[in-house]
């Protein structure tokens, strides 16, 4: 238990969690004024991206090199950390929307939070935890302004906003989830 508490503190978990909750509640409040209307995928994608972005700073500790010297099995812990980010971010949105306004379907939330979680894990592995947020934010802005299209490359590029059940969207999210979680679990954050 003590290890968990210390680990959570070193990964800025309380601050990240507060940011996740605040962003979800803020967007939910905005949506209630009829900003986007129900079923608008952009707002829910934005909440999820903001959530994983806030949580991504915890993918690296105070001193990555020092942590690596600890004689514990990092792989399952790191994998659990990534999976927990996706679960919490998705769950917060689902919990917030049970209070009223429907933002997105469960399938959409599951796909997007899984894919985005993989994306920040990739970012943390490749660029380091403090730069991991650039990937989901760039990708989200790319898909927000890309015109809707039915050809596969564009569908892959805008996977976050596709309706749930679209093959291209599901597969992209799946690939990102698996690749991101595996890469982070094995390699860890970049030093």
């Amino acid at each position, binding site marked *: 238990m003590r290890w968990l508490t210390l680990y959570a503190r070193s990964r*800025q978990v309380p*601050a*990240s969690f507060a*940011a996740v909750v605040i*962003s979800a509640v803020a967007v939910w409040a905005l949506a209630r004024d009829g900003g986007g209307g129900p079923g608008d995928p952009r707002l829910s994608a*934005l909440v999820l*991206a*903001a959530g994983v*972005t*806030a949580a*991504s*700073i915890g993918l690296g500790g105070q001193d990555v090199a020092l942590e690596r010297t600890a004689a514990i099995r990092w792989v399952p812990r790191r994998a659990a950390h990534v999976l927990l980010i996706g679960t919490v971010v998705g769950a917060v949105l689902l919990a917030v929307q049970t209070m009223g306004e429907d933002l997105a379907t469960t399938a959409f939330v599951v796909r997007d939070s899984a894919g985005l979680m993989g994306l920040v894990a990739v970012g943390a592995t490749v660029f380091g*935890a*403090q*730069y991991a*947020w*650039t990937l989901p*934010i*760039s990708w*989200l*802005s*790319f898909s*927000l*302004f*890309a*015109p809707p299209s039915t050809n596969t490359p*564009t569908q892959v*590029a805008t996977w976050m906003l596709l309706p749930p059940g679209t093959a291209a969207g599901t597969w992209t999210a799946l690939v990102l989830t698996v690749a991101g979680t595996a890469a982070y679990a094995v390699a860890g954050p970049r030093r």
Partner: protein
Amino acid sequence: MNVRVLRIELRRSVALWAGAVVLTTALAFLYLLSGPWWNGTALWTAQWTSMALWTRSLLIFLWPLAVGLGALQGLRDHRSNVSELLTSTPRPAWHRAATLAGATAITLASAFGLLVLQGAVHVPAVTEYTHLGWLPISLVGALSLVAGAVLGMGVARALPSPLTPPVLAVCAFLFTNFLRQVPDSLESAVPTAMVPNRISLLSPPVAGVREVLLTLSPSVHVGQTLWLLGMIATGFALLAAATPRARLLALTPLLAGAALALLVLPSDPRRTYVVDEAAAAMVCDGPVCVTKAHQTRLDDLAGPGRKALRLLHDALGGQAPVAIRESTALRSLSDAPERPRDAVLFDFDDGVIATAKGEELTRALVAQGMAPVCFARSDNESGTSGELAGQSVAAGWVLGDLKPLGGTVHSLRDQLDLARPVWKELKALPRSEQLSRIRAMHAAAVSCKGDPLDVLAGGESR
């Protein structure tokens, strides 16, 4: 010495990365996706102003990135735990702040400059209309990236937490999105935002371009520059400030800039996006006129235009239009285009005119002269198939054979299916009866009352 410091700063900071991220994201967006910036008359390489406005509209996601990357930069000292060490050095804090901000400013401004240069390579090949009115648009764009990054640095220095960069980036993203101006509107001819116009202009991105003749008015540039300078001053002061009181004071320029900007910025979207008078000036070849922005197309248009006017005169006599002009009036998406009696008004947004050459162009101009459209055709509007079929029958009557008009979303076969029965019926009538129906159709089309095809088929005009 200073150059050496700057070089070290460039090597040791995210400055170069920030420039690279901004440039590659923007280029990837422009070149990998085919959106409205590649289509129609207002595509991003159509004219200098369009190029400047389209590249600046990309700030909607580049600006939040610049803010976030600036914040990362501002966290560096905190991350390496040297803040305390550095306060003990005799060198004033603003020296270090200046090198840090300077390196990022240089890379971000050059990244935006390269993006504009990339557009500038395309433009001269397409248009002969050269002017410098577009330059302030791009300069304010580059300044806004610098201002965003410096503000990000300052805020991160004041609130040193790893959470600052992502939170700032997401907040900036929300800021640019909620204040976004949208060009496609049914109510307004110029881009408008959900929030009051003055507030929406505090966000650096501009709307995408739908009308090639639109440009930003000078008061917008002045107001935005004031606001951005205030932002830079605050960011810089936050970077150099050490005490909480100095940090609070550092917010003054930001507030002052906002207040001044709100005084200067226009409150009306119509005075934000104005018609570029120089670009809209008419260049004529006899009775055929186009705007200066489309001067290159005059040569192709003059011959067919003269021929079309001659044919129209033979067909309509005294009621025939005597000139052909490009339309310059601003129009929202639902409005009917202008239809004067004395001139044929056309728009290069209309695929029927824009894609036609030679004989086809004569036919398209005759069609537009006989039955000017009430429902505009463009990339965002489809027109009606009845109107199009009516136009092809009218042009066919003048030229002697029925041919469909290409370049629209309606298929040629559907158009002919609609037009052929009317055409057969019309040709079977005696000459005088044909003439009276044609004249009735012309009158109906000019006053926008009734479908030209119905009138040609003998129906009453409403």
